[in-house]
């Protein structure tokens, strides 16, 4: 157990250090979601009341598209110099690699959300009418729901032709209930329209189910020959 965490932590630190020094993914994601925000606000030009209703959808669609940028880069780095092959033959548990990558993506997407949230508030003139603190668990659970499956499917699409396009094709259909959970709970909290409890529980269930499935099947995918 201790080796699992040591290796997870080592891989995670390495990835974060690499990202911190290059900032490739983060810059691309930031600019991409900025473009989405601007294009959406041109396309809809909503009033304050309307924007409360649609902002949940816009925010999460922007984050979803932006996180695909980061997720596609997850494993690309390991393909150079056959790092992934080295991983396959090493005695390190496969799940520590998966957890490190998923946590790395989680941190990256969370940073993106923290930077983009103020912009959304400014552009769409948002003010939450419901209990705004609940947006934090929604954000955490929703982000994890995106990155846990995203990291897994990115590892799967490594083995396919045109892998960059493959990831969203695999990820989006499976993510539909999670996206609905994020969008609905955000809409409810912004508009003060009842309780978001069901959706938060749905997100939690989704996270638990798919984290378990990813951890159970990642080794199979990594070692598939």
């Amino acid at each position: 157990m201790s080796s699992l965490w040591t290796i997870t932590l080592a891989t995670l630190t390495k990835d974060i250090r690499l990202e911190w020094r290059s900032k490739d993914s983060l810059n691309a994601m930031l600019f991409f979601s900025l473009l989405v925000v601007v294009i959406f606000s041109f396309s809809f030009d909503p009033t304050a009341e309307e924007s409360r209703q649609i902002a949940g959808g816009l925010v999460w669609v922007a984050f979803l598209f932006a996180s695909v940028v980061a997720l596609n880069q997850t494993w690309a780095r390991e393909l150079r110099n056959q790092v992934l092959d080295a991983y396959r033959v090493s005695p390190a548990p496969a799940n520590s690699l998966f957890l490190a990558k998923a946590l790395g993506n989680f941190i990256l997407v969370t940073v993106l959300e923290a930077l983009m949230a103020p912009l959304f508030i400014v552009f769409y003139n948002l003010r939450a009418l419901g209990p705004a603190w609940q947006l934090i668990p929604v954000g955490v659970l929703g982000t994890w729901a995106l990155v846990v499956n995203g990291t897994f499917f990115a590892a799967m699409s490594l083995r396919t032709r045109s892998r960059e396009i493959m990831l969203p094709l695999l990820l989006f259909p499976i993510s539909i209930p999670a996206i609905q959970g994020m969008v609905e709970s955000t809409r409810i909290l912004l508009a003060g329209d009842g309780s978001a409890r069901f959706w938060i529980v749905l997100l939690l269930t989704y996270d638990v189910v798919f984290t378990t499935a990813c951890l159970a099947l990642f080794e199979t995918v990594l070692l598939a020959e």
Partner: protein
Amino acid sequence: MKRAFPILSVLTAILLIYGLYQALVVAPTERTMGDVQRIFYYHVPSAWTAFCLFFVNLIASVVYLARKNLKADALAVASAEVGVVFCTIVLVTGPIWARPVWGIWWTWDVRLTTTLVLWLIYVSYLVLRRFSDSAQTPVLAAVLAIFGALDVPLVYFSIWFFRTQHPQPVMGKGGSLDPRMLHAFLVNLLAFSCFGAMVCWARYRLERLRRDVEEAEALESLLGPEGLSSQTSKGRAPLNRGPQ
């Protein structure tokens, strides 16, 4: 098994024709909906067949992951492809019925949405199989099938909660069912199940043959034509093997 195939195909065809006769001629016209209700005799059996095939796909995928049995993988390919075809029939016939009866083509109702998401998941499954032609494809596809199966209950609950809070069109049910309608429905249910099974079987045989040919071709390019003739028993045997 090989000899049974044509016989069973003929029986299925007869059953389908009988089902068509029952659905279009024998079953009485529904009082409020009119003739468009007859689409039910195709819509529901197609849905049933599609769901059965997706279930077969899940079982075959799990068996493949556990045993690495290539027959199970061929069955998974066949059932997913045929399942998507039947699911497409469901998604097309549904709106054709809904437009005159509900007045709308589509609604985000539980059953409609779950079927649509299931269809999307299995289309992505087929895309994955198409885009990856390495030896790892069966493993990746089987893993995706398991993820899809885990996803469906979550989709169902999320839409169920989402839509029960909103008014929705009422299903045209209630009242007593004419026994001739029930009969036509059951005949078609059986006919479509047989039809689905037969198409899936044919596709399975095709997939096995395709793999055998691929294997033989790979062997041929490896050994050269002379090498193959000396290896006849090994190289050609899979090609001549009768479909199971």
